[in-house]
């Protein structure tokens, strides 16, 4: 069998990294994702010690985090576990819930600011029709970005994650890079 080389969602051997002004864009290949949905009448578990957040929310605990995706439905994130069977680990933590592996369906871009939250708010204003001022740390939502469906997560005042469909990774990176580049040009 020939040597198979793993590549990132953007098709390179190493995850892409780019700094534009005060913003740094980073492809995050290590993020494990699995969705968790309650069965009818079920009660919310607390996998890995997480308190599953209310609508529009994101909650983190150590290397794990969860964000709300729909009624009785959440996405669970595991930093650094993108190459493991994370769904199986989550299944053991949340018996009686419906768990679906999601890691390979998505690409995660982490955007960091070295100048506080203002550049991230301005980037959001260019990219999505979501109230950027009301999108503080702990907020997460799904919305449209240049006709692509994405999740936005405000992980901290100076950190924003955009999770989009993996097959559209190149287009999504291009959209973010273009908007961030224009912020620098102003």
């Amino acid at each position, binding site marked *: 069998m020939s040597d198979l080389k793993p590549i990132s969602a953007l098709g390179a051997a190493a995850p892409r990294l780019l700094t534009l002004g005060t913003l740094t864009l980073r492809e995050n290949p290590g993020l494990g994702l699995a969705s968790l949905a309650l069965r009818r009448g079920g009660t919310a578990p607390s996998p890995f010690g997480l308190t599953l957040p209310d*609508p*529009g929310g994101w909650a983190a605990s150590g290397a794990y985090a969860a964000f709300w995706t*729909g*009624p009785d439905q959440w996405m669970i994130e595991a930093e650094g576990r993108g190459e493991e069977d994370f769904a199986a680990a989550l299944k053991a933590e949340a018996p009686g819930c419906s768990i679906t592996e999601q890691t390979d369906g998505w690409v995660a871009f982490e955007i960091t600011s070295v100048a506080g939250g203002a550049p991230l708010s301005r980037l959001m204003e260019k990219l999505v029709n979501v109230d950027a001022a009301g999108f503080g740390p702990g907020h997460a939502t*799904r*919305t*449209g970005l240049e006709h692509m*469906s994405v999740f936005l997560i405000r992980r901290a005042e100076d950190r924003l994650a955009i999770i989009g469909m993996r097959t559209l990774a190149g287009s999504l990176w291009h959209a973010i890079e273009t908007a961030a580049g224009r912020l620098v040009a102003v």
Partner: protein
Amino acid sequence: MLIPHPLLGPRDAQEFTYLGDAMMIDRPDGLAEGAEAAFCDYVFQRDNPAGLHRELWFHEQGDRSWLVVTRNTVTHEILGAELARDVALARRATDTPADQGDAQ
């Protein structure tokens, strides 16, 4: 245009797709007497009111929930939105007190 999502607050209408009259929640029983006539009405017959209209919208680029949106078709004013799931469950609770609810 903004749609007041009951869980997420005001959201851009571009995130939604439109299905049609909210009467489609009341799907007839296909095994009952007169099912053919009932389905003929269900599939083809629609009121076309100038004024208040209850309609189904899908939050496709959002939490993917179905909403029942009350809209004025003359002014395009949106008067309210509720989760279609809540509407259907409430209706089922009043229609069938002897809980046949889990059959679906």
